[in-house]
């Protein structure tokens, strides 16, 4: 019977041989994502913002720390957005070019968000997957550590860290990265518990695949969907946290800047008729956050098979 089938199959094979490339779940997900208009447009806008923050400096007339003495102190009259003066977005109260400063703020805010989220994702995923897969006492201890860290008031510790060790981007990373992986590890652990009893994991164990390989080759790839979604939602969260810290005046150090710091300055001078100082950074901030949330939403729909 098998011999007969084989012949039949061979004939079919000749007709099919060019279509042997498989369609992975990732390709499926990408197609579903592309069908989501809001998410695709958001991705495009976000890409443009990132691109702008790299190309923009080449068109700038003023650097982000250079002071235009003409505009200093009289930003409301001289420092308005104009092409002639080279201040495309106007100047801030000290006469520094807002165009360059917004670009710089965009770079720093996005970097903080993306790097912070990747630290959280890597640490959280490995920690959660290990804890969930090993189970038992190890799991109990690892998760109690997470509980303890979670019960620490996060903003308070971050502010203390910045006050005690001085303000620096490095400290900000450590402070944000230290605590933002906690949620991630919990989510990943829950998913791992779910996956762990699947038959393909058992099949790998029966074959004798080591625990480390099972975690990295079987568990983590199956978690990536949910991790990707959570990561895109984490980026704006971290940007918000950084902005909040900067708004309090504890974030990045002058003359470097970030969206939060720029918004703070703009908000402080709103009564002097210099609304562009608030509106330009605010627009970048709001649009980027919207884009991140829409992309996260689109990814969730694309990667969650239950939504099909």
């Amino acid at each position, binding site marked *: *019977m*098998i011999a007969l*089938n*084989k012949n039949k*199959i061979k004939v*079919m*094979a000749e007709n*099919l*041989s060019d279509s*042997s*490339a*498989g*369609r*992975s*779940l990732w390709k499926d997900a990408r197609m579903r994502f592309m069908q989501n208009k809001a998410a695709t447009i958001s991705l495009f806008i976000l890409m443009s913002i990132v691109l702008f923050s790299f190309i923009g400096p080449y068109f700038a007339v003023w650097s982000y720390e250079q002071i235009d003495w003409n505009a200093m102190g009289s930003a409301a009259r001289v420092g308005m957005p104009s092409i002639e003066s080279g201040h495309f977005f106007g100047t801030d109260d000290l006469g520094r070019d807002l165009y360059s400063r917004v670009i710089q703020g965009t770079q720093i805010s996005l970097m903080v968000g993306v790097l912070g989220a990747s630290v959280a994702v890597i640490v959280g995923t490995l920690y959660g997957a290990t804890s969930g897969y090993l189970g038992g006492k190890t799991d109990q201890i690892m998760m109690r550590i997470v509980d303890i860290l979670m019960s620490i008031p996060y903003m308070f510790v971050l502010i203390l860290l910045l006050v005690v060790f001085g303000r620096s981007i490095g400290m900000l990373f450590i402070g944000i990265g230290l605590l933002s992986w906690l949620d991630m590890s919990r989510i990943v652990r829950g998913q791992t518990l779910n996956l762990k009893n*699947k*038959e*393909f994991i*058992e*099949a*790998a*164990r*029966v*074959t*004798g*695949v*080591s625990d480390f*390989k099972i975690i990295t*080759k*079987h568990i983590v*790839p*199956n978690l*990536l969907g949910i991790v990707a979604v959570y990561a895109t939602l984490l980026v704006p969260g971290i940007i918000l946290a950084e902005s909040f810290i900067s708004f309090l005046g504890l974030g990045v150090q002058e003359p470097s800047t970030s969206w939060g710091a720029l918004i703070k300055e703009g908000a402080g001078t709103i009564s002097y008729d210099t609304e562009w100082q608030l509106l330009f950074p605010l627009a970048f901030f709001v649009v980027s956050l919207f884009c991140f949330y829409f992309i996260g939403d689109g990814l969730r729909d694309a990667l969650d098979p239950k939504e099909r």
Partner: protein
Amino acid sequence: MSSNTILEVNNLKVTFDVRSEGDMPWTKAKKLQAVNDISFSLNAGQTLGVVGESGCGKSTLARAIVKMVPVESGEVVWLGNDLLGLNDSETRPFRKQIQMIFQDPLASLNPRMNIGEIIAEPLRTHYPKTPESDVQARVSDVMNKVGLLDNLKNRYPHEFSGGQCQRIGIARALILKPKLIICDEPVSALDVSIQAQVVNLLMDLQEEMDLALIFIAHDLSVVKHISSKIMVLYLGNMVEIAESDDIYKNPSHPYTQALISAVPIPDPSIEKNKNLILIEGDLPSPIDPPSGCVFRTRCPKAQEICAQKKPEFKEFTKGHSVACHFSD
């Protein structure tokens, strides 16, 4: 132990600790007897069928043999080595000789890996230094063997039907040329025509590669077709074990008799007049099994002695053993 016996299981016992919801942390967990005192031996190239209703310990038995569940007592002797006494790294060399096929064909394949990677995984695990071209050649070879085209290598599990997925599972089990494959209900998730294909494939491969099989199922007609020896389990206990033909002709235990009478016969006139033995009641709880004979609560022949004394598992003709006080 005869010379071509490859697997011998002696007095295997598996118990699970069960805690019910309102239990305090200091209350003692109840013991669930999943597998109780099971012994059998298996020769090279032979098939042992294991049958029994849901929850009787068939799958636990399979998992205990490959050390996926902790065993309370007993031994699993594989080619003269007691596997249960070995630690993880000492067990590894034996893992390539015993492979397993699972019930749900799709769930047993990692959805993020393509078929080539899935089938090659055991090979890459045990022989990590095999050159890539050899790995691919072996994968193609084994795929042909189970009736799959090797140009499907780059596809993913969700693109295949249940029967094809089970073939992939079989290919993965075969790539290391094992001596024993444990099939945990490999056909119960497939429809009848595909069941026949898969069972016949397994039988052909068995002949070709001199495989021993432990074939777990709850469908007696499938088991009869493939097995040389059949073991009937009830509530974790061995009820009867005999050669396949023998157990069909002379079922001695009332439970086996009832099971066999329940197999449908594909002829309506015989089927209508068949003497069907019905068993009353439900499966008792394995946490609190009945005293004496575990089957006595549902047995039509039950007497006083059944509640007092556990029947001995004894051989009454050659190769045919039964656990019943009234077997003769």
